[in-house]
């Protein structure tokens, strides 16, 4: 059925060509990580790209199109993968696209500076696609490393077109597209030199192929399926065992496979033998002992001590940028954009019922304002991260953090999404996708809300000086340290008692450092920010309206509202921390968005928007011990709605979402009570 549907679609596509008078090509962009794939994709498609998810997967899918020589080229960015074996969702997506969607041309982008390993993927791509063009990227980096590569010699060996490029400097892209177009038209010779299995395993591969060939479902190639079975590929093995082969036939295959458990390495070695033949004449190696830039930088960046110091300074700079640029910008947006909007709306709705103007001004514009004013901080964060990632630094951060993440049963990679959490917990939770094992991913998601986000820091920065004066900075850093300490303790405990299991393998490439590409970083920041606006923005807006309703109904006064009733019901609990009902309402309101805490206090303590008035009102209402307890709870309290929504989306489980909320509630309240008692004794 699937095949028929596909045929029908093919016909439909050809019809479209006839109707539009313009040919269309579907081109897939494949490559290992760190080959400059996103740079190439961004340069070719610009902002005409569509970002979504691969169907049924939490893996990002990017597509875009451009015109060349009277042809519309649809470019599909395949996930970056080291191989085409089912080790992760990315690999399955990449190969399924090539096998099932049959793109007209596959661009295999390779990094010239680590050609040997990069051609491993090409060895896997050639048997899968009928048209492969090799984009030999970063030839400048390879030259810097002292390697000499002759593209035409490589082309002759591979039997497929090879285009030398420096995507970061916009060189070779036009030639790449020209070649793709020519290959699609069949205008250039295409006789790929296909890799073959090592002689000692040829017999067994043939045996398997004979056994399965009649049962292999379309459109999978039978020889490829036989090879993947021999490699122990989890997905293909499950498919043949559970769906395609009759039980007795599978037993025969299984017996052979059991006798050749080591075949995975033999097949891989066979591919590297092929790679070695391909590059023998094309690549001249440098002398041994030359010290490269990457080597020099890594002596510091990956040093157990200096590496941590560098990471800490980077974090420091990010915070500094956030508070010296982000926070003032936030205030300007708040006053001029949101304030003006609210004034205009209020005057327009002057004659309307009070509830309507309240809904629009406080509910909708207030909510939208939260989202808008939060952007500067997020943009700073996204920009710094994109820059560090583009330069190749982030893998080093993961490396130096590995030994600490170890204590929580995680490995270095989990540090990367947690780092994002300092900006906002939402991208931190979503960023956990990069972690291979489900257990480690879940643990990372559960820990992410304990990273103090910028919004929480903003509340701290506002309240701490009121009670602690000159010591406010110290208090703020102490609270950050406390959050991270709690994160570590909770991580160790969850690892020990809740999510027991093996720690996933830590194997990670440390890419060469290189000069960042501003355009590529710009597009990345744009995409991340707009995705945040779309996903978190709409949620925050909806919940702002809900909370506005709860804080207004039934009598139009917050003091008598449902929210106040809830706060009063919680007052006994607050009493344990020296907090009255108004502070409990503030905590409840901060569930929507952490920075709501400030606005809520403004309303409840009757000072309106006047920050100076809030100072005196708060100082009168809270003892320093209670204020400290409040700050502690605020730091550790349940994440905002947007984060909770992200947790649900990423774990696909209400149970884990509820666990996360419950856990944080218990932790924050007990910490708050403990701090209050200790502080009261002093």
């Amino acid at each position: 059925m699937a095949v028929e549907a596909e045929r029908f679609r093919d016909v439909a596509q050809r019809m479209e060509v006839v109707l539009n008078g313009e040919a269309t090509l579907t081109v897939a962009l494949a490559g290992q990580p760190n080959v400059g794939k996103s740079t190439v994709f961004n340069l070719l498609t610009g902002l005409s790209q569509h970002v979504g998810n691969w169907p049924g997967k939490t893996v990002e899918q990017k597509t875009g199109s451009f015109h060349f020589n009277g042809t519309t080229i649809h470019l599909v960015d395949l996930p970056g993968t080291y191989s085409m074996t089912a080790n992760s969702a990315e690999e399955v997506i990449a190969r399924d696209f090539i096998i099932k969607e049959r793109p007209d041309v596959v661009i295999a982008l390779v990094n010239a500076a680590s050609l040997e390993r990069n051609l491993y993927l090409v060895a896997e791509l050639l048997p899968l696609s009928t048209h492969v063009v090799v984009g030999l990227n970063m030839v400048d980096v390879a030259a810097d490393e002292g390697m000499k590569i002759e593209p035409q010699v490589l082309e002759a060996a591979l039997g497929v077109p090879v285009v030398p490029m420096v995507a970061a400097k916009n060189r070779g892209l036009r030639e790449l597209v020209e070649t793709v177009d020519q290959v699609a038209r069949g205008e250039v010779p295409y006789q790929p030199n296909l890799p073959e299995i090592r002689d000692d395993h040829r017999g067994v591969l043939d045996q398997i192929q004979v056994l399965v060939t009649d049962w292999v479902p379309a459109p999978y190639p039978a020889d490829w399926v036989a090879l993947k079975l021999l490699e122990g590929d989890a997905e293909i093995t499950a498919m043949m065992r559970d769906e395609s082969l009759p039980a007795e036939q599978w037993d025969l295959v299984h017996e052979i496979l059991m006798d050749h458990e080591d075949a995975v390495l033999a097949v891989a070695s066979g591919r590297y033998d092929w790679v070695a033949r391909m590059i023998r004449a094309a690549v001249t190696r440098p002398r041994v002992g030359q010290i490269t830039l990457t080597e020099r930088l890594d002596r510091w960046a990956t040093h157990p001590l200096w590496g941590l110091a560098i990471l800490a300074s980077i974090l420091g700079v990010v915070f500094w940028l956030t508070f010296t640029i982000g926070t003032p910008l936030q205030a300007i947006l708040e006053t001029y954009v949101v304030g003006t909007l609210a004034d205009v709306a209020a005057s327009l709705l002057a004659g309307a019922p009070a509830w309507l103007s309240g809904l629009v001004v406080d509910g909708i514009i207030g909510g939208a304002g939260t989202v808008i004013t939060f952007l500067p901080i997020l943009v700073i964060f996204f920009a710094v991260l994109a820059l560090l990632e583009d330069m190749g630094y982030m893998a080093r951060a993961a490396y130096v953090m590995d030994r600490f993440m170890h204590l929580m049963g995680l490995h270095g990679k989990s540090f990367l999404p947690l780092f994002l959490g300092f900006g906002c917990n939402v991208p931190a939770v979503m960023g956990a996708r990069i972690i291979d094992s489900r257990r480690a991913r879940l643990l990372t998601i559960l820990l992410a809300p304990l990273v103090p986000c910028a919004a929480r820091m903003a509340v701290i920065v506002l309240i701490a000086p009121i009670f602690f004066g000159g010591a406010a900075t110290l208090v703020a850093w102490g609270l950050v340290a406390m959050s991270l300490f709690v994160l570590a303790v909770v991580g160790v405990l969850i690892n020990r008692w809740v999510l027991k299991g093996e720690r996933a393998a830590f194997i990670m490439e440390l890419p060469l450092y290189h000069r960042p590409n501003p355009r590529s970083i710009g597009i990345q920041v744009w995409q991340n920010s707009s995705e945040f606006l779309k996903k978190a923005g709409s949620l925050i807006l909806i919940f702002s309206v809900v909370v506005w309703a709860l804080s207004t109904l039934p009598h139009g006064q917050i003091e008598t509202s449902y929210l106040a009733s809830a706060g009063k019901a919680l007052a006994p609990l607050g009493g344990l921390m020296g907090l009255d009902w108004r502070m409990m309402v503030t905590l409840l309101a901060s569930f929507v968005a952490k920075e709501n805490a400030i606005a809520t206090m403004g309303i409840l303590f009757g000072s309106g928007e006047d920050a100076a008035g809030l100072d005196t009102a708060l100082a009168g209402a809270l003892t320093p011990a209670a204020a400290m307890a409040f700050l502690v709870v605020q730091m550790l309290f349940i994440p905002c709605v947007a984060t909770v929504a992200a947790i649900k989306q990423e774990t696909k489980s209400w149970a884990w979402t509820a666990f996360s909320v419950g856990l944080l509630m218990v932790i924050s309240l007990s910490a708050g009570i403990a701090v209050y008692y200790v502080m009261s004794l002093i």
Partner: protein
Amino acid sequence: MSPTGKYESMESKTMTTDGESLSAVPTGEAAQIRKMQGGHGFLSRLASLGFTPGAHLRVIQNYGHGPIIVSVRDTRVALGRGEAKKILVERLARGDDGRRG
């Protein structure tokens, strides 16, 4: 709470007939992979990053605790210590690694 303690005691036992474990090779030394242990998924991931029996590598960083960095097939790869233990290697004389990574 130190992440270092538990590894050192095991390092001395890593010499076998198949060679010594990669985690025991000091910074700067070159070696050739003899054998790799582990499940299909682990071996396949290692292979796609350049680790196969016979491949030459050089240890870029090994502090005796925590993860290590090796250079294999022109690629720098960070490996957890536990992962490095599953790769058995034979040390090569200095300058015999054939290539730089």
